[in-house]
């Protein structure tokens, strides 16, 4: 067994910030409860003790302020990594993200930039109810000037977060909170796994990057291409294994900019495409993926592109496991897609 330490996703994310704060004293982390306490999910634990209160600090509870202040710090020359405690609470800050961070480079013709990385836990599967479960990535992919990154493993989380922090554009870094502690196969009624057994929990201590804009092939296959990201990567992979379908699974990792080459090559090979995400269906990122695939692979498609997504309802509490696009829904959709 290798010497590389094992980390869960929280530890990997913590390590990414640690590495970057060590290398670049312009990197600061901030947000509600991120300072002394180290964040409600402990992603920033230990950073204040190590780097001091002016580099890792708690903030007032105003998302407008957190993002607005981070933009100002970025304009000064810092490289802020603000946390929004839950992605459901990004909305109050939307104007600062959309009208300011995402537009600053363009509107000032490069005079000012917003090199900020907004971290936020997102997604469901933790009985968090309507306001601790949402997946708002689709909204941000519609906003020009901001990159959206979603990791699915500890290794990727660290490497992508480092790349995001080093990126000179604003990056929304959404962390699938359901898999902070272990990959989740979608079977809520089976015992939870932790990361230890997963190869991508081998995470180097030091600096490394996973480039933004590149998808990962989780599994090669010939029968169908499945596009997914975040928690869904594991749900899809487990379901595919159970079904024994020869699917090719792409973990998109970055939604904007998207790895269109990987998608196109895969769908042209398999002739079938399925898209899986937790977010509500209508105008979710799956719609864009579907549109792109049919624009580029039209003559290769043997069946309609299928979307398996959250339903177009608010995220319910008690019916969470009916809402969640889990193994049953993926299997049924796949059966249909392969029959078509």
């Amino acid at each position, binding site marked *: 067994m290798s010497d590389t330490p094992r980390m869960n996703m929280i530890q990997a994310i913590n390590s990414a910030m640690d590495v970057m704060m060590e290398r670049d004293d312009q990197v600061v982390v901030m947000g*509600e*409860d991120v*300072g*002394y*306490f180290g964040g*409600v999910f402990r992603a920033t634990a230990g950073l204040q003790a190590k780097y001091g*209160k*002016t580099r890792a*600090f*708690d*903030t*007032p*509870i*105003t*998302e*407008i*302020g957190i993002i607005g202040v981070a933009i100002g710090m970025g304009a000064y020359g810092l490289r802020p990594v603000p946390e929004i405690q839950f992605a*459901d*609470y990004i*909305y*109050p800050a939307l104007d600062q993200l959309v009208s300011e961070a995402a537009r600053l480079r363009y509107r000032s013709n490069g005079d000012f930039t917003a090199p900020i990385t907004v971290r936020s836990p997102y997604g469901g599967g933790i*009985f*968090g*109810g*309507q*306001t*601790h479960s949402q997946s708002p990535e689709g909204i941000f992919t519609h906003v020009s000037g901001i990159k959206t990154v979603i990791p699915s493993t500890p290794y990727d989380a660290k490497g992508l977060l480092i790349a995001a922090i080093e990126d000179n554009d604003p990056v929304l870094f959404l962390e699938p909170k359901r898999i902070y502690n272990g990959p989740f196969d979608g079977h*809520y*009624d089976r015992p939870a796994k932790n990361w230890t057994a997963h190869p991508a929990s081998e995470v180097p201590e030091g600096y490394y990057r996973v480039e933004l804009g590149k998808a990962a092939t989780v599994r090669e296959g010939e029968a169908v291409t499945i596009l997914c990201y975040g928690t869904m990567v594991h749900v899809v992979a487990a379901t595919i294994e159970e079904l024994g379908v020869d699917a090719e699974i792409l973990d998109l990792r970055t939604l904007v900019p998207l790895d269109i080459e990987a998608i196109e090559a895969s769908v042209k090979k398999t002739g079938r495409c399925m898209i899986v995400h937790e977010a509500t*269906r*209508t105008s979710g990122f799956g719609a864009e993926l579907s549109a792109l695939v049919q624009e580029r692979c039209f003559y290769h498609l043997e069946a309609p592109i299928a979307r398996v997504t959250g*339903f*177009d*309802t*608010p995220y*319910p*509490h*008690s*019916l*969470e*496991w*009916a*809402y969640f696009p889990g193994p*049953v*829904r993926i*299997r*049924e*959709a796949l*059966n249909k897609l392969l029959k078509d």
Partner: protein
Amino acid sequence: MTVDAPRANLPPLSLHVPEPRFRPGDEADFSDLVVPPAGAARRPDTAEPADRFHELAYGLIRVLDDAGNAVGPWDPRLDAEAKRKMLRSMALTRAFDERMFRAQRQGKTSFYMKSTGEEAVSVSAALAMAGDDMCFPSYRQQGILITRGYPLVEMMNQIYSNRGDPLQGRQLPIMYSSKETGFFSISGNLATQYPQAVGWAMASAARGDTRIAATWCGEGSTAEGDFHSALTFATVYRAPVIFNVVNNQWAISSFSGFAGAEATTFAARAIGYGIAGLRVDGNDALAVYAATEWAAERARTNQGPTLIEHFTYRAEGHSTSDDPSAYRSAGEPNAWPLGDPIRRLKDHLIGLGEWDEERHAAMDLELAETVKRAQKEAEKNGILGHGMHQPFETMFEGVFEEIPWHLKEQSDQMIAERKAAGI
């Protein structure tokens, strides 16, 4: 012009980052806290212009003195029966919290939030308002529902997301809603209820109604933009609304300094808008009652909004997901000098000869029984467990008044898929 090089002849700037006085391991010592004596604060006429009593935003309105006597002009002079009712509602709220906290720990639901130590803030306020005034609470004002007689079983049904849940399992536990009880649907997003309360109050005023609105948020939540929007609208239109800021000194792990408490009080925010601001001992149930009564009269006579800061202390964790020993001194809750609202009102009633330890113990027992009975009742409708107590198609109802085709289709698809999968 050189923009990049700091001028060497000027002293460097430094960033102040607030730090609470006590952290884990520290001994909590509040002996230097200046607590104004009970009875000392002036009580202005409710028609007095807001700029005449700024001092009330910086002091602390207190009625119960250290000996348990009700003193001074803010004493609401309630009869003993009313005070016993107040005591009972607070005790019931606490008993409810205890039981539901335990239910969560037993895995019967996903989440719970107590209001321990802060019961006066909701109970006394509810008693001082009319029963049909409208409340826009945060998640820590279960005391309002309890005071207004909303059934405990219904609250528990909601907490369990079970078959009896009036919200059909859609909301996180404790996010109650009861229009009939004048209790607005609780949001997970902080402070959004503030402008909504103002809107309700403005509507009531525009319609020549007599009902007023009140809203609550924590001191940490005052930093949200919604808070400011609400106060701005309220001052502009002189809305008949009461803004309650529950300063329990903690916002999850952040002490009130991160909401601005180092520089001034939260009641002082009111001064910035020309709104009446009162700072009240939030653990003094009579003071909370008096301030609310005053603010309600002010609102009802078209004198506009009042902001009341309730200075209290969050005696327990933020929620069942929180462990306060990780960020504050374990001794803080006990060292907190303003005491416990239930104990203080109890002592007062005993001092008056209107109550005694035996009756109190008996009441506690009875309330514990009441809560237990309600719990049994509620659990007949199921506990959360893995959820799914509602028919699946209810998930698609209520997104809109009528179900549009795409939701109908999704609903049908779900049912069909589950059937095909044999579940």
